[in-house]
């Protein structure tokens, strides 16, 4: 018998989070069993882990945020979520997945090459970050004495997804707040509605700057296509810690805002494909991947596509080249990009603009400063290295360090416009 296409998302809302003896979920209240979570994080590379909670509105600043994950599970032991990392490396995106909406598990602390990444749970920066809107289990750690940083990174990545699956497992039998049917793109007639794709550029710059698809890097590969619902099941896991404002953590891949916005308008258009692309570091391969992605989109019969990126100015080229190649293939293309226009906002906004395509949505100017008020408590790192100030101080920082504030996956409302 043919498997039923599509995913059923069983949603459990989290409205309260605390630490306790045993992990449980009860009508919006998630309790994290400290001992079981510590067991899941046990690894030779980690000497010690510390657990803390941070909820929306708290006077808490989380500094040095690495990845963040939404708790999800398809059954005991995760039932196959986070394939290639926790579950077997086999296609996901079908059946039932329980998610704890409104909760996240995140790691915060020092790793080499990880740039400053700040989440303020209250105050003026809070509306800029998706992780200021979730009840967060924050994992801090002390690395084992002789541990290689790559092993610390890998231990944290495995640990986060294990904990995420463990927390969601507590809700497997609970009455859901919502049950959502997510259709799988397929051969069904589209009633003349435009077929729209999402082109998702994934950073592939090596250690601490890579993204994993079914547990492996796309580095060196060509574009490929997966079903959007595979994202919901954790097929794409982030290991990229540069450019904090532009970061696309696992959490945003699982809840991909562009995919969600397209699903929300299914009466006007058809979400027809999700195309994953590596972001090569050299121009020739950027050209190759972009041309190949455009042909793939045309071959999938797309009328239009939205292109996103991860990373700084270098990755502007990955979006701009694709917008140009898509338009040449007759596919209407819209890019989402952050501006890098200097502190006063008068510089050229893009490092590499497209040559022909012109439809671009702005997630704001990376270089503009904002003042974050002092907070009562800091997690992750005691000092903000960029300013060499205690993390709890009042801080003047560029938007560039506010975690996910400018993610081109499009969660945020930040934008930029000419002043009058």
């Amino acid at each position: 018998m043919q498997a039923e296409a599509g995913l059923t998302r069983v949603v459990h809302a989290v409205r309260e989070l605390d630490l306790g003896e045993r992990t449980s979920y009860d009508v919006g209240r998630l309790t994290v069993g400290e001992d079981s979570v510590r067991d899941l994080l046990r690894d030779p590379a980690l000497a010690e882990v510390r657990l803390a909670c941070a909820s929306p509105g708290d006077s808490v600043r989380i500094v040095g945020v690495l990845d963040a994950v939404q708790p999800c599970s398809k059954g005991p032991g995760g039932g196959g979520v986070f394939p290639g990392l926790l579950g077997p490396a086999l296609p996901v995106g079908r059946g039932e997945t329980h998610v704890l909406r409104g909760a996240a598990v995140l790691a915060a602390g020092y790793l080499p090459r990880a740039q400053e990444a700040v989440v303020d749970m209250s105050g003026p920066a809070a509306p800029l970050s998706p992780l200021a809107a979730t009840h967060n289990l924050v994992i801090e750690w002390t690395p084992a004495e002789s541990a290689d940083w790559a092993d610390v990174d890998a231990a944290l990545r495995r640990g986060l997804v294990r904990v995420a699956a463990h927390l969601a497992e507590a809700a497997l039998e609970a009455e859901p707040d919502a049950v959502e049917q997510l259709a799988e793109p397929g051969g069904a007639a589209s009633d003349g509605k435009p077929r729209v794709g999402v082109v998702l550029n994934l950073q592939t710059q090596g250690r601490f700057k890579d993204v994993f698809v079914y547990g492996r890097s796309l580095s060196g590969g060509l574009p490929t296509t997966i079903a959007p619902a595979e994202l919901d099941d954790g097929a794409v896991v982030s290991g990229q810690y540069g450019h904090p404002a532009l970061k696309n953590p696992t959490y945003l891949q699982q809840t991909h805002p562009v995919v969600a916005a397209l699903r929300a308008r299914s009466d006007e258009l058809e979400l027809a494909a999700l195309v994953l692309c590596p972001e090569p570091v050299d121009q020739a391969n950027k050209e190759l991947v972009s041309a190949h992605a455009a042909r793939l989109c045309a071959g999938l019969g797309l009328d239009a596509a939205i292109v996103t990126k991860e990373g700084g100015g270098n990755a502007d080229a990955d979006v701009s080249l694709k917008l140009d190649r898509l338009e040449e293939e007759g596919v209407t293309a819209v890019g989402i990009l952050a501006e890098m226009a200097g502190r006063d906002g008068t510089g050229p906004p893009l490092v590499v603009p497209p040559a022909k395509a012109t439809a671009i949505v702005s997630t704001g100017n990376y270089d503009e400063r904002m003042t974050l008020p002092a907070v009562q408590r800091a997690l992750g790192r005691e000092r903000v290295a960029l300013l060499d100030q205690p993390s709890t101080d009042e801080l003047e920082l560029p938007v560039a360090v506010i975690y996910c504030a400018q993610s081109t996956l499009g969660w945020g409302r930040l934008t930029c416009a000419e002043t009058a």
Partner: protein
Amino acid sequence: MKLVHYVNQFFAGMGGEDSAGTGPELRDGAVGPGRKLAGLLGDEHEIVATAICGDDYAASHPDFAAELVAQARERGAEMIIAGPAFTSGRYGMACARIAAAASEAGLPALAAMHPENPGLGEAAGTAVVESGQTARQMKDSLERLAAGTLKLAAGEQLTAQDGRIGPVARANRMAQHSAAERAVALLLTRLGGDRDATEIPLPDFDSVTPAAPIADAAEAVFALVTEGGFVPAGNPDRLESARASKWVRHSLDGLDSAEVGEFESVHGGFSTQWANADPNRILPLDVAREMEREGAIGRLYGEYLGTTGNGTTVADARRFGMEWAAELRQAGIQAVILTAT
């Protein structure tokens, strides 16, 4: 109103490239094109002094602007005007910096240059009016500068109709909908036939014509420059690993090779593991010295210039480039090897 007018060494009649290293000074009254400008401004305004600086000096000493503005204030300047700089990059940058420094000091200011002048971005929101491409269009350019000056002196703002050019500041704000929702809306608008809708008007980039090849490498002085975050071990200048706001220079005298323990890379955009295992991979000092000994190149310049190219704004990168070019030209360099990462 009392005005101070800025011109470079060339328009002050002090000479061309050979005098480009001249430091800042203030001279009484109008000089060079300032004389014609004074006539156009009429009797109500007076150019009390002319501020002058060599183009290379101005490009490599950003403090010249604040220095000249302070001196101009001592002479009672109520407004500072600069140029026209036409398409001359270093002169345009100097005019833009003078105007920006005057604004910062609370004085109204205006510069004039061609819209393609790469110095335009340095004006930081201070008014700039369009000039012609070369001094052949001096008359029209001065007339536009004079008209703009009179309008500003009357307390009015300049607009595109006055020939105002240059970037208008863009500022962050919260939209009503998320970027994802706006992208879907923009896509539907485009599919509906609107081919122009966008949130970011595309910038125009100037293209640089590469210099002609050097005639004889064996006679040329070479400099090594890099954006690879290459610094002396311990990073004494605290060069940023991303979003660099500055560049550094360090001596290579007496060094045959960039050794581990003496240099490192602090670049935040790539894994520095292999760079730090052999810093010559970022700044190829070992090979350059070898070529110097073999006579394949004339001589290696005694310093390297470097910054970090990671999340750097185009405006900053352009500024670094112009400053480096001025420095190296002053130092008599004929060839530069820029290692990119």
